[in-house]
């Protein structure tokens, strides 16, 4: 078993003439929490999709726990232990919260997943886990509601529940607090913080405070390339990072 949960080598992807990610060597040790930050268009979301499998690289490789997954489709990576949330809330809006979670738990169990003759709610081991998860994440009160009837913060939590329901080893969070109210964001950060430590987390984040609070290490990307990786304190004081952001901020303000 590799000591790295995620390891990329010379990972590059081009869309037409545009190089979105250029020769990135990323190494995230197992159990670490890594934030990828950077100005808009830095390639962080693409990087994220490369790891999750939504985007295939033009060249280079992606390894998860030592296994080369470069050519694996999304669902195969999920089975290899990768979970993800989406930047825009992506839930099954017409199913109840319980059914959302049931599907997530069942997704990790090939036998259940492929069953078409027995009702989804009649699998005791699935039900037990669903009940646990709903309790643990304070969703038991709204279990019969549909996701659209929940607050946005609750929807984001439900996303994380779905992503981690299958006892995954690597969690990819795409801007978890985007669009969430300040108070709910606090709650969400605490929630993420309280996830088990053996779970490796990679998050793409716009909000610097959130990134600095959650992450053990931070990778800063600029123009599709890795600028610097280091612990939050080092990053905070790094001149290149300040320049990259300030340059961008001025641009944004204009």
């Amino acid at each position, binding site marked *: 078993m590799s000591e790295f949960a995620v390891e990329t080598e010379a990972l590059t992807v081009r869309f037409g003439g545009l190089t979105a990610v250029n020769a990135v060597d990323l190494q995230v040790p197992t159990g670490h929490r890594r934030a990828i930050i950077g100005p808009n268009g830095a390639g962080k979301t693409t990087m994220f999709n490369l790891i999750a499998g939504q985007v295939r690289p033009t060249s280079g490789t992606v390894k998860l726990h030592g296994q080369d997954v470069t050519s694996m*489709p*999304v669902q195969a990576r*999920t089975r290899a232990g990768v979970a993800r949330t*989406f930047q825009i809330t992506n839930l099954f809006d017409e*199913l109840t919260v319980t*059914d959302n979670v049931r599907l997530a738990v069942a*997704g990790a169990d090939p036998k259940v997943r492929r069953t078409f003759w027995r009702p*989804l709610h009649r699998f005791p081991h699935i039900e037990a886990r669903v009940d646990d998860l709903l309790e643990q994440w304070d969703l038991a009160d709204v279990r019969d509601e*549909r996701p659209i009837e929940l607050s946005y913060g609750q929807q984001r939590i439900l996303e994380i529940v779905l992503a981690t*329901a299958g006892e995954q080893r690597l969690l990819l969070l795409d801007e978890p607090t985007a669009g969430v109210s300040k108070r709910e964001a606090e709650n969400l950060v605490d929630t993420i913080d309280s996830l088990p430590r053996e779970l490796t987390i990679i998050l793409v984040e716009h909000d610097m405070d959130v990134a600095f609070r959650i992450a053990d290490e931070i990778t800063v990307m600029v123009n599709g390339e890795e600028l610097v990786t280091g612990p939050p304190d080092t990053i905070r004081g790094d001149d290149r990072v300040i320049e990259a952001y300030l340059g961008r901020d001025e641009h944004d303000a204009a």
Partner: protein
Amino acid sequence: MSAVTPEARNRLLLRVALLVLAIAVVAAPYFASSFQIGVLSRIAVFALFGLAFNIVFGAGGMPSLGHAAFFGLGGYIIGIGTVRLDVGIITVFVLALVLGAVLGAIVGVLTLRSHGVYVLLLTLAVAQALWGLAFQQVRWTRGDNGIAGIERGLIVPGEATLVTFYWTILALVSIFGALVWWFQRSPAGVAIVAHRESASRLAALGYRVSAYRIGAFTVSGAVAAIAGVLYATLNRFVGPENLAWTMSAEVMLFAIVGGAAFFAGPIVGAAALVTLEVWVSGFTDRWLAVLGLTYILTMLFMPQGILGLVDDRRRAWRARREGHEIAPTSANASDALTGTGGMS
């Protein structure tokens, strides 16, 4: 404060009403005319066809306009099998299930890369190709003349009368309808609905989305073929019109009029439309014109279907009781189907 909540009381009332309805349908031969029994048989067969169709349409969110292919396939299996060849009735049913499933799987594979109106056109093209075969392969199908003389007695255990035939139809429709219900509540069935809501999320949960799309068409095709067998038996006849695209359009209307977001939607829709047809035919030959108007008016004024209206009422009632507003969500359910589907 009584021990029975209004919700529980209503649920009980609904169950009693459904039970009474079921008894009335089964006991219909004791008080209905033979013409009415015929109408009920047609409703039952179309209801099964609608249930099969709605696995792909209402649950899966894929607008097929080619389901007549499965329906007609079933009809020709019993037509060619029992009139032209000498195949046993059990074999007919097995063949219908298997070939319906195989054709369904093929259509499922063909439509994997399509969305919205492209699914519609593709399924239509497949059905038209089969319709062309039925029309032109005269040696097998007798072409436009169709195959007449399908024995109703074949599917009836024991003595074949109008009544025993009706009961056989009811029993078969109930059995296969229950199988569809069972399937839709299974993990695979729920995943098919989930795929409609968000294919990317489903894939991220470890499901191979394409397998569930194909699965939806496979089960749908098999059951639709059974409905086709029953329809041909009911009419004692099968012809190219069983495969015509208007049949596909009609089954879509069953689902929409009843409420595509609901399991019982196609049943209610089939009952409503067949009854309407019988009633209208009583005083005019212009049934097709009335049907056309029904299409337009339903879509403009009742896009969520009859059950959608009922559901909205129920929610509004509950909201009033609880003293707060609950947004009607059935409108959203039908929006998921009828809204801006992916054109790209």
